[in-house]
């Protein structure tokens, strides 16, 4: 069985600020990490490998050359191989172009199962996984919180819903997007880190994946960004502190003062 895990390198948003003049992210000096949800995707793949044995786990990312660091980290956790899609032609991709490009690569690699994170913490659209499934012409199950059963034939999972969860079955191949509840990602191992240091990261460009050029990058991206702005910070607010009980009491008092209660 071959599992492809799609991982995205993102800025550690805990440390990202927005430049109020230009309304763009201040990325200088902000460390890059693997999108946290994608760590859960890697862990899910590794657990399936441990369970079924005969499984190859491939980590795939599309990004600038430095996204190689994210792939090495994935190897140090235990994935078997790593591929980097990197090419000027991919620059400016929106989610449609991103998922087209990734799906071309996945088609090329071959797959039985594709696992993605629920969403990226920077882009936040949660579109790439399901869009890829469309391009690959396979079913997808989003928001997977547990894998109940898996064989080379099919899979049964729990899909997180607002209240409770659904149990969903699908034949392979299928694409999953996973939520945090599914597992606790492992830390890297020493042997993994040593392997990662030496590992060769294969790089793919648009010619390696037989992609149609007009579907790539800016040209292939129908989304147009009209304006990016940070919502103005409102100053007329009041914060309550203390225990929850004290906070509620203070809030009720305040609402009474405002004649809302």
């Amino acid at each position, binding site marked *: 069985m071959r599992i492809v895990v799609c991982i995205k390198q993102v800025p550690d948003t805990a440390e990202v600020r927005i430049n109020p003049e230009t309304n763009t992210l201040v990325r200088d000096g902000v460390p890059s990490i693997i999108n946290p949800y994608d760590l859960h995707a890697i862990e899910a793949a590794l657990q399936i490998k441990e369970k079924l044995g005969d499984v190859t786990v491939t980590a795939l990312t599309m990004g600038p050359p430095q996204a190689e660091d994210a792939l090495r980290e994935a190897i140090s956790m235990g994935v078997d191989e790593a591929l980097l899609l990197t090419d000027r032609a991919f620059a400016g991709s929106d989610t449609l172009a991103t998922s087209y490009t990734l799906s071309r690569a996945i088609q090329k690699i071959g797959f039985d199962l594709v696992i993605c994170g629920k969403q990226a913490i920077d882009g936040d659209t949660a579109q790439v996984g399901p869009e890829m499934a469309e391009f690959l012409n396979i079913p997808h199950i989003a928001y997977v919180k547990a894998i109940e059963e898996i064989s080379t034939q099919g899979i049964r999972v729990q899909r997180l819903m607002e209240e409770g969860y659904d149990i969903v079955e699908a034949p392979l191949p299928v694409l999953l997007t996973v939520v945090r509840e599914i597992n606790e990602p492992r*830390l890297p*191992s*020493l042997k*993994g*880190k*040593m392997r990662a240091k030496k590992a060769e990261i294969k790089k793919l460009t648009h010619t390696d994946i037989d992609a149609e050029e007009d579907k790539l990058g800016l040209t292939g991206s129908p989304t147009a960004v009209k304006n990016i702005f940070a919502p103005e910070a409102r100053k007329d607010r009041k914060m309550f502190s203390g225990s929850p009980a004290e906070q509620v009491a203070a809030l009720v008092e305040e609402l009474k003062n405002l004649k809302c209660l």
Partner: protein
Amino acid sequence: MDYFLTEEQQMIRDLARQIAEEKVVPVRAELDEKEEFPTEIMKVLAQSDMFGIFIPEEYGGLGMGAMELCLAVEELSRACLGVSTSYAANALGTYPLLLFGTEEQKKKYLPDIAAGNKFVAFALTEANAGSDAAGIQTTATKDGDYYILNGTKQWITNAGEADIYTVIAITDRSKGARGASAFVVEKGTPGFSFGKKEKKMGIRASVTRELIFEDCRIPKENLIGREGMGFIVAMRTLDQSRIGVGAQGVGVAQGAYEEAVKFARQRVQFGKPVISFQAVQHMLADMATEIEAARALVYSVARYIDSGAKDISKASAMAKVFATDVAMKVTTNAVQVMGGSGYMREYPVEKMMRDAKILQIYEGTNQIQRNVIGQAIIKEAAKMKA
């Protein structure tokens, strides 16, 4: 300070630090309070290959040495000595097999130990034999293809949790110090059980317990080394592992010092952060200086051991004494710098101070270490005259 660590050594230190910060620090107070063995943390350490650091590659380890083990131990100790004691005692229990085991014994046990599938303990001490190890009374009597063990080992770290025990017992009392032998005993062997769990002052995440042998029959293949080599096995094992206790000292001292600095910057009295008072600065200055001196000594000795040096007793005793005395002093002063807050369980330094005390006691008290150093000095002086 830059200790010119290799890339691999940095990797070990960084990963051990990550494990310590992410998996140990959040639970250390609770483990201490509940006197609970850190099963989950041991699993993480296993998955990260931390148990294989000093085991040769041919047995599934990473094939590194004392220096690399010290780096891992130091980082874990910076977070919690209870956790690092459980981890380090595993190495202590493994050394007899590594240093004296037969090829079959190594093949049988080391791969599981390296992978963290099996956990190990070392058993020398008894009620009447602490510093005076020659006073042990546990016996191993040969009976055909078996040895039969009888007796009780006391204060054994990892007892009950470990799967494999390296045990020193008397095989021929008439031969005195040459009458002891080392054995490997597996958990679950009939006649082998565990006694009471000790309630301790510190390192409460580690378990300390009795081993009880009542006509416990083990195959003769479980003898480590030759009959009569028991104390040689024990002493070589302790010489090899003692540096790890030094690394524990450096780690816990570093952890306490960092807490003290952090606190002293924040705590305001007389209108100023207390770190601005020279008396406090001087305490911190001494702490930082002594920690660095201890670390330099521990790393030098670890590298000396890894160079394959034969005569390591004196050097390893020096590193153990110095670094653990520093640990006791620094953790005590960390409490002092933090005043009443330091004494409260809300902050980690009172635990560090309680924990640090054990380092001056186990694997040979610091008095005994000074005896070892003293003996070596006498020997060296005699040689110089000749």
